[in-house]
């Protein structure tokens, strides 16, 4: 009997553990499901249609309806161009596109997933079964303008407020109309892919912003440092022979001119001088290798992975062109965040898309709190880089984004990649900012398969955002 008791005690302990595993596990699974599973695809379409038939409205920041329910139907933006420009962000009630506001905030739109106290207040005033409306931070005019700028090209334009992290514009092309997604017809290839937050592109010369910051933090940093550029290739590892490109060479060159002309040789050289450890550390201060959640949406910052102590590989990494086993990618959103951090004294704000919810009472509530996503360790010389980028717009290769009367900073980039046809192609990139307390906006642009005038596109979209004179 003693043994029976002992065995029973052991089994009781085992059962208590199992019970706790179950009780706690279920609560955790519910929580995880609320974050990750509400937008799973392939669910019964008729059921989804019925579930969304009375769901709340999704508004743009300028109060244009992006998704709404009427007479038992779920409808999307009345302007078809706006509807297609927002399709990868808003999604559709069938969840054919993942990682969208419709899917991820399904519970809020149908009147669930609120805090207990809020739900109690709504329930006992007869409003509990009404879903919340959602106001996004995106502006419809800016979105339409970005859509027209991208035209038939494959690419993305993202604009954020670098002081707050609010995403004002997030357009990814190609895209398609929500009705096509719902009926699963006439869907161009990759049109459901949200390049803005999920794309992973080699940054090309836009990465020289990060390399420049890393260099200013290096022990060898000298603001007056110059070197002799013999050609366009980066400086290779010690003992390597560089090709003399003759007329293509920049000759004796310092950092400001190097930004103007986007000198690969100079940035390869300072990258090596900075060293792989500090290069990695600076990349991570800029949010590389860090997971990014935009509310419940899953975003992507860049990836930085480089072999230690390989100067040859490091010189290419420093100009944004990873080779061999090295990895270096950015998303258009991350591009906007990088230049935004330069304009914002080294503070990279957490990007967000939900401005606030509107309760069934019609009141705004649960406004998104502004948070810092990442911060540079040393901001002593950040002004130097910022001024170099402004001067690059005023006098250098990014001149196309110049707007008279405004201090615009920017950096262009081109990066080679393999396109969908398996051919080597160049992507055109741009990252830049407006250095103006009244217009604290930064932009990230990627256009695939060609040499596009991204500074001009940036200039146009930044001029539009200034013109709109948005409140923030």
């Amino acid at each position, binding site marked *: 009997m003693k043994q*029976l008791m002992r*065995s029973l005690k052991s089994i009781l302990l085992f*059962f208590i553990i199992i019970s706790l595993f179950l009780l706690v596990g279920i609560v955790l699974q519910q929580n995880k499901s609320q974050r990750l599973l509400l937008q799973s695809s392939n*669910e019964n379409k008729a059921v989804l249609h019925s579930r969304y038939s009375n769901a709340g409205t999704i508004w743009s920041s300028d109060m244009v309806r992006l998704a709404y329910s009427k007479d038992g139907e779920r409808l999307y933006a009345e302007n078809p161009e706006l509807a297609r420009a927002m399709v990868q962000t808003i999604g559709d009630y069938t969840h054919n596109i993942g990682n969208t506001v419709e899917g991820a905030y399904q519970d809020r739109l149908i009147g669930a997933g609120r805090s207990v106290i809020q739900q109690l207040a709504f329930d006992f005033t007869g409003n509990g079964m009404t879903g919340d409306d959602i106001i996004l931070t995106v502006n419809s005019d800016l979105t339409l303008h970005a859509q027209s700028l991208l035209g038939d090209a494959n690419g993305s334009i993202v604009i954020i407020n670098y002081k707050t992290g609010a995403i004002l514009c997030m357009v990814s092309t190609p895209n398609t109309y929500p009705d096509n997604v719902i009926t699963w017809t006439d869907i161009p290839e990759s049109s459901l892919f949200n390049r803005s937050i999920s794309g992973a592109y080699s940054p090309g010369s836009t990465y020289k912003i990060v390399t420049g910051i890393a260099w200013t933090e290096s022990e060898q940093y000298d603001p007056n440092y110059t070197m002799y550029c013999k050609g366009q290739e980066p400086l290779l590892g010690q003992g390597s022979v560089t090709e003399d490109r003759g007329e293509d060479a920049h000759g004796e060159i310092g950092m400001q001119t190097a930004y103007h002309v986007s000198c690969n040789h100079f940035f390869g050289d300072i990258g090596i001088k900075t060293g792989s450890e500090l290069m990695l550390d600076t990349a991570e201060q800029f949010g590389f290798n860090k997971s990014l959640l935009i509310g419940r949406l899953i975003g992507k910052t860049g990836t930085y992975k480089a072999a230690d102590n390989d100067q040859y590989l490091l010189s290419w990494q420093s100009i944004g062109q990873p080779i061999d086993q090295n990895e270096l990618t950015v998303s258009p959103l991350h591009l906007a965040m990088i230049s935004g951090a330069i304009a914002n004294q080294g503070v990279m704000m957490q990007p967000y898309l939900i401005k606030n919810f509107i309760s069934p009472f019609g009141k705004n509530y649960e406004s998104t709190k502004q948070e810092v996503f990442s911060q540079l360790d040393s901001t002593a010389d950040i002004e130097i880089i910022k001024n170099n980028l402004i001067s690059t717009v005023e006098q250098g290769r990014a001149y196309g984004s110049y707007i008279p009367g405004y201090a615009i900073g920017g950096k262009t980039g081109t990066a080679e990649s393999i396109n969908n046809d398996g051919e080597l192609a160049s992507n055109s990139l741009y990252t830049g900012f407006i250095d103006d307390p009244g217009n604290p906006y930064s932009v990230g642009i990627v256009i695939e398969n060609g040499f596009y005038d991204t500074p001009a596109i940036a200039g146009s979209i930044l001029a539009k955002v200034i013109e709109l004179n948005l409140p923030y």
Partner: protein
Amino acid sequence: MQILSSYITYLARYPLAIIAIVLTAVLAWKSLRSLLNRFRQHTTPAHGFFLMSQTPAGGDIVESYPLFHTTAIGSSRSSDIRLISKSIAGRHAIIYLHEGKWFIRPADSNVDLYLNDRKVNNPRRMKNQDLIQIGDRVMVFVDERVAAELSGQDFEGSIADWQYGRITERPLKTGFSWLLSSLFFLIGYLAVLLIIPSDLGNLRLLYLLLLGIFFVFSQIYYYVLPLVFENFDRTIYIAFAFVAALGLIIQARFAFVDRIKPLDWSDADFIRYIRNDFIVQAGVAIFGLAILPIVVLIIQRTRFLEKIYYVCLVLTPLLYLATLVLGRGAAEWGASLWITLPGGFSLQLTEFAKITYLIVLANFFKIRPPLKTQLLFAVWAGFNFILIMLLPDLGSMMILLPVTLIVFSVMTSEYLKTAGILIGGAAIFFAAYKLLPYVQNRLYGWLTLWTETNAFNEQIIYGLQAIARGSIFGRGLGVGNPRSIPLASSDMVFSVICEEMGILVGLAIILCFIISWLRGANAAAKVRDGFTSSLILALATYFFIEAAVVIAGTTGLIPLTGATLPLIAKGGSSMIAKWLMVGMLIGLCCRNEEGAYR
């Protein structure tokens, strides 16, 4: 009016969730304290039976040793009666109670054990004043009843009572819990009534009638059965009655709300279909509840279960074989478990095979059996498991294996062998994984749960979505979307409950099965008879493990199997089998010390 009804039902989820969690948490806490209290008391010596012996120093000093329903004697620390001597083995002899009679057997074939100077090789019955020689120690078996009778004394006033006393367990107070449980039923009952669509108006009367019958039965049983059965455990009854009531409410919701009429059906056909559907489901629940007292009566007052041991021994593999030959359903559900009966009904014999399996299991391990007996059981159980694998019914396997393991380890305390069985079980699952594509698919679906939706995990994902939408208090009865979840009323019913009634009610269900195990463990430790003890343990463990496997499977904590939630999920065979098991468990818990001796 319809809107107001929906609104009232919607608000009803608050009292339902709060009542459910308060009721079950209180009962679970009381049950745990009661079990811990029993552990503290350590053990109940058999009332009026003990061994007497001179101390090793000799002389007149006499020591007495209490006996339990199974008592190990030896020199090891783990022995119930520890006798230190070179001639006494670590585990020397086993004394046990079987069908009211005391037996002794050697724990090992190499030890010297004598009863009245005759060597004991096989179990031998003991009587008052029998001399037991264990190594160099001689002990006397004392049966206080017989001794008292011989000396003309009253047994109740004997030294046995004075020395050891009785553990008189005060029954747990359950009045308030029952009140809450009844309130839960009535609120849920009325909430569903309010949302039955007006075009099914005639069926409301049927609903009121059937659920009313269930409610009245459950009330009568709570108050009357304790008068009929002295040790009737109201706590365990409340736990099962609550789960069954909840099952009936959710099945009524499935039957009446959100039904879609096939285009080619007439209204009359549709209503007839719904009516028959509900009558079958509610009917089996009421039938199960109705036969409860009869089952309890048979189990408590007779040795019926002990007597059908050999029948169960043969019947268990036969039921699996019959299912293997006649079963269908593999194409739809992955396993051929249903046997078609005339009239369109189907029967799951495997549900009843689980009962007969547990009876055999309990009988094998009612005492600490020698290795030969254990091997015999292993062969028999192995044969059954092979048949289960061939069906394939992985759900049964995932429940019966842990139950076997737990009963074995508790009743034998042979932990090394337990580990061996555990490894064996793991090997069986590995073999199942390697041999059965259906198992591989389930595992793949589980591993990709958070990364992709595919044919092997969509059921769990839609279930988890429903749980996510349900949050703490649910979305209200009838407001959820069970139609998007495959097998919502059977395998995935837990998800629907969580969506419409909230996760608090889901947690309350788990607590109910924890309560039933705690009360079962308490009774297993209390009763004197090895068979009763091991069968209580087997049944209570079965309920808990089945609920845990189903709930963990539907919530993605473990890979999903084809098992269903006891007393809640749709399914006639399962419902009747589970009510039989509830009756058996309550009946066994009613057996008291005296009852066991009869």
